[in-house]
Structure formats: C-alpha cells, structure tokens
C-alpha cells in the first residue's frame, strides 16, 4: 500500500487530465466551421499539394464573394489518393457536387454514370461561350455526343532540353521541326561519359509517354472503326521498334534497370513518374513532360533550360492533356454546381492560374492575353510552344476508352517484356500477344 497522499495526488492528476480532454474536445468542436443556414452548400473536390490548397481556398473565397447565396465546402485530397477516395465516395453516394477529373480516368467514370451531361446547362446559359475553349480538351470530355466536363487547362506534352548540355557539344538546340532522325543524331553527341570512367553519365532522352510514338506512326491503339486493338499492325511495330532501338540498340536512353540505379544512388523522388529528377540531375539532356513540372524544374535545375515540341515521327501527332470539372450525377444542386464549374473554368480563374505558370489556359481568349503570353518565368519559349501544340494537337496521352485501365495494365505487361535486359521478347511477338489480350478484354461486355 502506498502513502494515502500519493493516491489523492494521482486521482487529482487523473481528474485534471480528464478535464483537459473535455476542454480540448469543446475547443475543437467550437472551432469547426459551419455552413450558413438557408444557403446551398456545394461540395468541391480536388487534389494537390499544400500550396495548391491555399490557391484553391482563395478561389473558393472569391466564388463565395461573387455568389453570396452559395457556400462551397472545399474537399481537398492529397495527390495519389484522389481517385481512390472519389470511387469510395461514389460507391457510398457521398461524392462531391463538382470534382477534378483527368482524361485517362474520365471514360471509366462517365461510362458508369458518375457524371451528369452538361448540355442542358450550357444551352440555357447565355453567358457561357463553349467556342472560346480549345476543341482538343472539349472533345476529350465528351461521351456519346454529350459534354460531361469543362476543361480547366491544357497540359501539352513539352520537350524540355538542357541548354548547357547542348552548348557543351556544339549541337544546335532542338526546334519544332525536329523528327526522330534529328533526335537520334543529336543523341549520339549528347549521350556522354563525362568523367572518363567508360560509363555513360548523361543520356539523350527517355522515350516515355510511349503512346505518343504510336500516334506519330498513325497507330490509334484502339481502332475507332472496328473497336479492336491496333497493336498488331505495321504502324505499331514501327513505333515500338523505335522505342526499343533508342534504348537497347543506340543506347541513347537509360534502360529501366539503369534508371532504377540512378534513382537509388541519388535518392531521387519516387513520386509520379519517378524518373522526373533525372533531368535536373543532369542524367538526361532532354525530358518530355507537361507544364506542371515547370515550377519544380525552375526550383531545382542548376542549368538553363527551355522547351519545344516533341520530335515528330511520320506524322506530327502532338499530345495535349488537361483536367476538367464535371458535375456528379448525385449532385442535389446542379445549377449551383454549374455556376462553380463556370467560375473555375472561366477567364478570371484561368488568368490567375496562367500567372502561376504551370498550366496553359483552356480558354482561347486567356491564352492570347498578356497574362499568359508575357509570363516572365522560365522556360522562355513555354507560352509560345504550348500554344502551338494546343492549337494543332488532336490527341490526349492515352486512348479514350471505358476499359482503358484494364487495357493499360495489359499493355504495361507486354511493354515490360520488350523493354528488359532479362530475356526480352521480340517486338513483333509482344505486340501480337498484346493485341490478342486487348481484344479479349474489348470483346468482354462486362
């Protein structure tokens, strides 16, 4: 038995702690934000980083200022978890009214009835001008002839290059008229051993975004006329052979194993594409990516860089991606949600985002304005090049198909069997197998 005083002391401490918990609980409850009674409460779902959260909060505050009868609840999810959470919410019928959506997943969601058509809202709104949007992204968010999303931006695939790497070997900077031939020719000069240890320290380029090369050869991946896979065709073989030979015959790009080795040695980022850091690390002289990477490159690159269009194949199939805002079919406030979509994709917000410098406006009028064209942040040519790509591009990075997630997984397996050091499969055979498997998936009605 301890001293009776000690027992009282412990009881006192226990009661104090319990009281503290109650005070904290009360404080927490009191600080929770609450919607005003009598107003429509819209839920707006999007994702990004901490800085983007602050931007989105500013935009929401501005919308509420313009629409005092609508409250917006911002539901912000971190990158990588967004689609997982959205699917959970749709399954549980608790999805937000307006949500962020990308081209690759759009068909999957829309074919399952997740979004509502916007055509009636567009038709009844005289203040909305659909013609002011670049057609490539408007078309990307159409399904069975109806509009389901209004694009917030354009995200063209840019070809970034390290100017100092080109200067070092006296090779002229890449231009918009480059083809695969110029890419390979320059690559032979720019793939270099920099420290004399007989190992390559700087490669020319990593041929990522592989469907681009298929589109550039005239292969649509899925034939729009027959609805079957177009992978077992001469066009597909030309594209895949180029990607393979660039890495394994010409040795102008690192293999998957070499990329993993560079990343492991440098502890580089494993997020997103994972290989994005190879450009600022100086391990590749050129890198294809969209403008979202520009703020990061600007922050970490210790060399001067610029961008141009991706080198063309037999055809100049440039690629544009971009996000849009659809309205969920579950929304109880479609008209208020339309106002939010219109605001988020309208001139004021697009001008604001254009100044931030990591996206290209989806509105022609904003893209032609000084806010975008006279941006001062590097790379110098980004505005001009991006605009050229957006105007002529007809394709998004992946084919638009409701079963694309499944088809993509099949493609990845075949691609990895070709692009490997360990008993690689010949290009022709891999594409034949891929086409067969894709056709099985496409033939399955479920």
């Amino acid at each position, binding site marked *: 038995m301890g001293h009776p005083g000690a027992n009282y002391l412990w009881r006192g401490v226990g009661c104090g702690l319990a009281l503290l918990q109650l005070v904290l609980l009360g404080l927490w409850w009191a600080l929770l934000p609450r919607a005003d009674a009598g107003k429509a409460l819209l839920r707006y779902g999007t994702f990004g980083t901490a800085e983007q959260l602050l931007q989105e909060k500013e935009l929401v505050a501005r919308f509420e200022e313009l629409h005092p009868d609508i409250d917006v609840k911002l539901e912000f999810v971190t990158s990588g978890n967004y689609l997982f959470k959205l699917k959970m919410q749709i399954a549980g019928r608790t999805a937000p009214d307006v949500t962020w959506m990308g081209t690759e997943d759009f068909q999957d969601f829309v074919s399952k009835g997740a979004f509502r058509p916007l055509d009636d809202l567009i038709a009844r709104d005289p203040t909305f001008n659909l013609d002011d949007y670049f057609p490539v992204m408007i078309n990307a968010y159409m399904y069975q002839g109806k509009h389901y999303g209004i694009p917030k931006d354009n995200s063209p695939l840019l070809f970034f290059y390290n100017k100092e790497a080109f200067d070092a070997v006296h090779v002229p900077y890449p231009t918009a008229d480059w083809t695969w031939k110029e890419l390979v020719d320059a690559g032979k000069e720019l793939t270099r051993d920099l420290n004399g240890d007989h190992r390559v320290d700087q490669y020319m380029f990593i041929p990522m975004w592989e469907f681009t090369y298929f589109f550039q050869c005239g292969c649509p991946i899925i034939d729009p006329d027959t609805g079957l896979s177009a992978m077992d065709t001469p066009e597909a073989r030309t594209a895949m052979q180029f990607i393979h030979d660039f890495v394994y015959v010409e040795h102008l790009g690192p293999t998957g194993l070499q990329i993993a080795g560079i990343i492991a040695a440098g502890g580089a980022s494993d997020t*997103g594409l994972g290989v994005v850091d190879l450009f600022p690390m100086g391990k590749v002289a050129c890198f294809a990516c969209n403008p979202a990477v520009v703020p990061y490159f600007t922050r970490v690159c210790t060399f001067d860089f610029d961008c141009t269009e991706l080198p063309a194949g037999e055809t100049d199939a440039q690629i544009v991606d971009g996000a849009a805002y659809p309205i969920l079919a579950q929304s109880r406030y479609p008209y208020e949600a339309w106002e939010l979509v219109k605001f988020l994709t309208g001139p004021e917000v697009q001008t604001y985002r254009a100044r931030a410098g990591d996206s290209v406006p989806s509105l022609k009028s904003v893209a032609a304005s000084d806010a975008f064209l006279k941006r001062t942040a590097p790379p110098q040519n980004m505005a001009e090049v991006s605009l050229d790509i957006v105007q002529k591009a007809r394709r998004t990075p992946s084919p638009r198909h409701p079963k694309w997630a499944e088809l993509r997984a099949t493609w990845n397996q075949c691609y990895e069997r070709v692009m490997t050091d360990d008993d690689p499969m010949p290009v022709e055979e891999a594409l034949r197998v891929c086409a067969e498997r894709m056709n099985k998936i496409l033939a399955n009605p479920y």
Partner: protein
Amino acid sequence: MQTSTKTIRSVQRTCVWLLLVSGAVVFAIPFLWMVRIALVPDDQIDMGLRLLADWSDMRYMNFATAMTVQPFHRYFLNTYIITILGLCGEVLASSFVAYGFARKQFPGKNMIFIFMLATMMLPPQVTMIPVFILFRTFGWVDTILPLTVPSLSGAAFSIFLLRQFFMTIPRDYDDAADIDGCNSFQIYSRIILPSSKPALLTVVIFSFIGRWNDLLGPLIYLNSPDKYTLQLGLMAFRGLYSTQWNLLMAASIVVMLPCLVLFFVAQRYFISGILIGGLKE
C-alpha cells in the same frame, strides 16, 4: 590463469559491445538520414545516403516552414482528439470484454473467442466499402465518429492480449474479493485492472501509435481540410511530379515526437507487458 580468464572475458565483452553498437548504428541510420534530409535546402535533389557524410549546409528553418505551410496546429488538435477518444474507448471496452473471456463461464465462450480472433485475419480493405456505406447511412461521413465510436466495441488484438494477461492473475484474488463482498465489476475495476498495468500500457501504446499514424481511416471518412489529421497533412507534401522531401521529413520528425515520448515514458511497462506470463500462480 586469472589474467587469461579476465582477458577472454574482456574480449568477449568487447565483441558483444561491438555487435550491439553496430546493430544500433544500422537501426539508427534511417533516422539520421531522415534528420539530414529534413535539413537540406529546397533546391537540393540528391537525397542519397552520402548526405550523412556532409552535415555542413543545415537549414533549421525547414522545421518552421514545414509547420507553418499547412495548419499543423489544427491537424495536431484533430489527431489528438481522435486518438484520445479512440484510445480511451478501446482500452475500456477491450479490458471489459477480455475480463469476460478470462473469468466468466458462458455457453459458446471459446467459439465466440475464436470468431473474434478471426476478425483479425480479415484485411481492412475487404470490409472497407460495406463499412463506409454503413457509416454513410448513419450520416457519419466527414465527422470523427467513424474513427472513434467503433473503438467502443474493443479491438480484437487488444482483447486477446489482455485476456491472456488476465488469465495469469491468480484466481485466489478474485475469490478473496468475492468473500469480502465484491461484485464482478468491483473485481474487474479493483483487482484485475490495477494488477494489469503493464498489459494495459501495452494496449495504450499500440492503440496510440496505430491511431496517431492512421492514414486510411481519415482519408476515407474526412472530407473537410479543417478536420484533417497529421498523416493527411504529411501527404500534402507529395506532389504529382515532385515531393518536398525536406519539409516532409521535418514535419514527420515533429509528428512522430509524441509517439517517441510515449514509448520512452512507458518503456519499462511496455516490455513487461509484452512478456506475458511472467506472473504465475
């Protein structure tokens, strides 16, 4: 003879120490690496192990930046509330259920106990959507209720751990209390619980760390940034193409401090709680 024995012993001791020190170094490297990354400048890409050899350019302001770029004070409070409520519920409910399994006789007891253990074998991903729909029906989405209320039915692992510990407490104590006029609840609260501090503290530590570091639960059930927890805050340092590793590591170090403090404070009890079976009738 004595000298050679002493020499052998000191050599043995040195070997043991060397082994222990090298083991400790191996386990400390990831943490040191984390601290070093937390101190690198914004424009540094190289996060490799070689950083550990160079501690020259240290940016201590990264800690302040990491804590202010997001409302971490709010996330701390939210996480604290969820953790403490869930923890209290789990400890109370689990100990109560464990007492029943350890001391009471009722039909089908062993079968029910096996069913309860079987729930541990189900991965949470399997039950995620049905449970989500259930809580949505209750109107609990975007509240802390799904993260705290289920703890009031106890946790299978905690019940198992406590039941095993309670069974090692001599029944003579219960009998003596029974003769003195204690009812079952009094035996539970005055005899069993005070005798089980190590096991209870073990449950507290496991539960605290699990709830403090939970990402999936808050990710699914919380929608408003004002209700976010620390783990969701940490995830916001990861972007689509890049991660702010320095800020992420700085924030992670601060976030893990309460777990470290709790572990060191309760370390003695924690180890004896894990070593169930030390007390024999």
